[in-house]
């Protein structure tokens, strides 16, 4: 029946296409508007105060940064379960370097560590030809273990530097002075979005995710591109780790356990497909924001944590189901 429709329904198509294209990202944005309206109504107008919205942004910034990398990985048909561990490793690396060096070097060191983790993921996926789910399940434990070993299973204290104020607001009253960390995220989001849409690398990611065999036939260097995308994802996860460090002010090898699931959820709510070839930065950010709004909204309503989890879980399933129905 599907075949018959595909063959014979050609004339009625253009309008359908236009409608679907509109819905591609508007779906998740509408979802965001909906949860905002819902909690706005329940909590009251103070929910929309600049300070509160900033809280939402700060809450979600770590997930967002890691999710930018995850979006690219998922677009290319992969997945990276090791981000939570890389975040932890990054906080440890930052704290350890800070003990003897300056903050800039500490940040660079942490990002380099993330790059190494990502490159290892990419190399294992491409050279061993094991599916990324399994590879990164392995490296998730591996990196977590490395972080714990490096930290000697303790929290690592570090001197206070400007790294600690990445997520702190300059309190001079104006709402525009958002924390540096948020500005960094916005700029990175812009770069990743433009990369996905307007560069050869980005188009190759979509091609690999949509059909790896087609990409290979067309001369795309699959392995090189995959190693690159996992490396970038590792670096972004490490940056998320620096922000986590900024929040904690210590290096903690046990932090961010399970963060990868939040990150993946953000991408999926935002329209990414685990079978690859689909995903967008706008969608992912909106997905992350939806989860943050629910979290903060629920806590401000005094709802217990379990309610928040049920709501978030339903949204994930609902978003994917909606996507299925639409296509």
């Amino acid at each position, binding site marked *: *029946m599907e*075949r*018959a*429709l*595909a*063959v*014979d*329904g*050609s*004339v*009625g*198509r*253009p309008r359908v*296409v236009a409608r679907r*294209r509109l819905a591609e990202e508007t779906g998740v944005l509408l979802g965001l508007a909906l949860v905002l309206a819902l909690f706005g109504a329940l909590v009251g107008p103070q929910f929309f105060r600049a300070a509160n919205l900033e809280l939402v942004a700060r809450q979600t910034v770590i997930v967002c940064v890691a999710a930018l990398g995850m979006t690219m990985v998922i677009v290319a048909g992969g997945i990276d379960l090791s981000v939570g561990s890389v975040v932890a490793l990054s906080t440890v690396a930052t704290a350890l370097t800070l003990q003897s060096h300056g903050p800039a070097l500490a940040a660079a060191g942490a990002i380099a560590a993330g790059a190494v983790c990502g490159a290892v993921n990419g190399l294992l996926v491409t050279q061993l030809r094991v599916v990324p789910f399994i590879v990164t399940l392995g490296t998730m434990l591996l990196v977590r273990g490395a972080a714990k070993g490096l930290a000697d299973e303790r929290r690592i204290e570090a001197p206070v530097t400007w790294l600690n104020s990445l997520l702190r607001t300059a309190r001079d009253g104006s709402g525009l002075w958002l924390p540096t960390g948020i500005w960094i995220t916005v700029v990175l989001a812009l770069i990743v979005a433009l990369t996905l*849409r*307007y*560069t*050869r*690398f*980005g*188009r190759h990611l*979509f*091609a690999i995710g*949509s*059909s790896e*065999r*087609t*990409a*290979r*036939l*067309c*001369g*795309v*260097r699959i392995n090189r591109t995959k190693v690159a995308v996992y490396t970038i994802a590792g670096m972004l996860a490490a940056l998320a780790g620096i922000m986590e460090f900024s929040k904690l002010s210590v290096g903690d090898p046990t932090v961010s356990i399970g963060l990868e699931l939040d990150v993946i959820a953000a991408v999926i709510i935002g329209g990414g497909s685990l079978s690859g*070839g*689909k995903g967008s930065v706008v969608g992912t950010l909106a997905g992350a924001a939806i989860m943050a709004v629910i979290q903060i909204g629920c806590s401000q309503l005094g709802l217990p944590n379990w309610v928040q989890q049920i709501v978030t879980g339903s949204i994930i399933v609902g978003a994917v189901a909606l996507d299925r129905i639409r296509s």
Partner: protein
Amino acid sequence: MHATQAREAREGARLEMRGIRKSFGATVALDDVHLEVRAGEVCALVGQNGAGKSTLMAILAGALTPDAGTMRLDGRPFAPDDPLAAREAGVAMIHQEPSLAPHLTVMENIVLGVEPTRGPLAIVDRARMRQIAEAALADLGHTDIAADTPAADLSPAAQQLVEIARALASGCRILVLDEPTSSLAHDDVRRLFELIGRLKQQGNAIVYISHFIEEVKQVSDRFVVLRDGRHAGSGTTADARSEDIVSLMVGRGVDVLYPRQPRAPGEVVLQLDEVMPGAATLAVRRGEVVGIAGLLGAGRTRLLRTVFGLEPVKSGRIVVAAQSGGAHPRDRWRQGLGMLSEDRAGEGLARGLSVADNLTLSRLEPLGPRGIVLPSRQRATATKWIERLSIRCADERQPVAELSGGSQQKVAVGRLLHHDVDVLILDEPTKGIDVGSKAEIYRLIDDLVGRQKAVILVSSYFPELLGVCDRIAVMARGRLGPARGVEEWNEHSLLMEASGVRAS
């Protein structure tokens, strides 16, 4: 109406579809179509892609409900609400691709859904199951298929037989074969035809859907042609010439199906020396079409993939236009080679991506400076090829999966044109596409060699090779024979060579 005629229709027609009409929105897919099949008769249903064959069969199978018209099965009104109802009434469909449960055995597949049971707990009666399966296979004259082989271990041809056995075991009244030969090798096609003949004699009513007119001529008693959702003509197959049927399908003459302007082969652009696998030695010149004939599984696709760097070269040498360099597909594209995959859905096209992305994927470089892809330029480029190749799509952003088979293939071919390669390696370029698109692809090939491009054409369809190529080499049992001028070949000699029967 004559009384005798009416009686004959009542008594003889196993299936009768009258005045069938179906529209999707504003599109009329079928308009006043009629089809009649008698017991002991093979009725061929032919037409281009989009002519309405699939819709008509979907209505018969209960997947779609007609807007108007009536159906009768054995003279009784037949209006299935869903596919299950149609199946229970005795409509069995065999599709292009085998649809057996791969992990179940042959007999489990044959009785799937109608398993014989025993006792109040409905325990599956395996002995009875085996009996039914073996009886059904014996009816087909294929006792060579063991009842407890897992379906996945069977060849496509054997899987198809099991599907037919399943249809017969469930007591089908009307058997629909939809392009049954598309994944079969020559020998299996012959055996399938013998089987169809036997089923016919046993009094089965068969609808045979095919693109291949030769097959229709060979296998059917009557034919019905659909064109643009209408009944374009019908008749007794023995009385109709192939050209007549094709004209009914396309609505015009087909003398121009294989155009051929004078060709002037130039210098050698691709040279294969003892390339393994394939033991292939071949020189391809500019301005000529070299065909590689062979049966399914002869290793033609493997050879092409090796040449294009998709599979490793075991030994031998491949020289492209005197250029050296790597053998990765990326290097091959750079050296001026382009390949069209025979597996359009799995490899040829990224089905989720847009027409524009698929057209330009191999060569994004000219679409912007230094690693950038400018959407405006991509759109302009894609639109150009959509117009030139008359690809039917909403616009360049439409996902390629939504296009018809013919248009999809044009997108895949368009990629080679966008890349402007010197050597086009075309693996089964007309597989599963309608006659109109086929003709356009033949015209395109002729036009390309006229502009001094070289084409390697692999096809299982010998008339196409004979019509299009300048030289043909035959591949049999994993070895490529010497390329000889097309005038030295005919269908018979190609088949002899391909099946390993050497003349003299």
